[in-house]
């Protein structure tokens, strides 16, 4: 079983998550060209990591569970990377540029 996390830690994580929501909103109003999506997804991934690590207690889970959690999110990275690798190399498709 887990050790008990102090309330202060949970509140701090909540505060960071809320601030990062504001930051992602604010950054979306600044034109960074192709970097807008990178920043947006970076912030979302950071928020996700905080939720998984602290709220979902993966921090104190056993190595087997940690490995599965990592594998699950690594899988979606493979899905997106392979898909984009395919579509961006099809010269006859519309678009063909990063947003």
């Amino acid at each position, binding site marked *: 079983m887990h050790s008990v996390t102090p309330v202060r830690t949970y509140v701090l994580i909540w505060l960071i998550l809320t601030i990062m929501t504001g930051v992602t909103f604010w950054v979306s109003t600044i034109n960074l060209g192709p970097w807008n999506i990178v920043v947006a997804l970076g912030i979302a991934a950071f928020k996700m990591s905080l939720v998984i690590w602290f709220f979902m207690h993966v921090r104190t889970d056993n190595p087997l569970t940690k490995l599965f959690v990592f594998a699950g999110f690594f899988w979606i990275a493979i899905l997106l990377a392979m898909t984009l690798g395919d579509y961006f190399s099809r010269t006859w498709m519309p678009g063909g540029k990063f*947003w």
Partner: protein
Amino acid sequence: MADTHVVEAEHAHSPHLRHHFDDMHQQFDSATFGMWVFLLTEIMFFGGMFGAYTVYRSMYPDAFAATSNFMNPAYGAMNTAVLIVSSLTMALAVRAAHLGQQKILQIMLILTMIFGLGFLVIKGFEYHEHWVDMKVPLFAGHWAWDGPNAPPQFAHQAQILFCFYFFMTGFHALHMVVGLGIMTTIFVMARKGTFGPEYYTPVEVSGLYWHFVDIVWIFLFPLLYLIGHTRNLI
């Protein structure tokens, strides 16, 4: 005698320990692990939609940006905030269950449900606006693409993003409804005093589900609402 020894051993352990587990610790770890295996199938479920979204957005980046401007980021931001607070109260509910604080556990579960319900209400207002605004594709008479912010060349691609919007937020909302059902069950169990320091596994694994649904929204918010602000396409 051997028989007496077995009987004694059975009386010694928690009434919540299922017979196929060695001890409470193993039972807790197995339940957590099993929940994560389920959540991995959920990643695949939502992953398919995120993958399809990625493909279409790479094909029609300008159309998606223009269409995103028809969504209201204020609703999206408000719902993000509401969900994050509900995740906090959920985490505090698990903590209270772990410490055997029955009153706090029940209050936190109620708060989690209120915030979850709040999310759905806000979402409902938002869907209603899209309905009035004629931004619901696939429904005859509820789709229109006109006005100064609607470049006519995007008339068809705009429907693709709104289809993604309704399917992804719709399935997310469905998960919220399921989550509210789970929380109601957990609340009823909590009222009976089921949970305490030695047994709070159901609260923990329900929390995992709730937080996962929160994570899905963390990605939906920037991908659906915030992609059009910086582009002047007209």
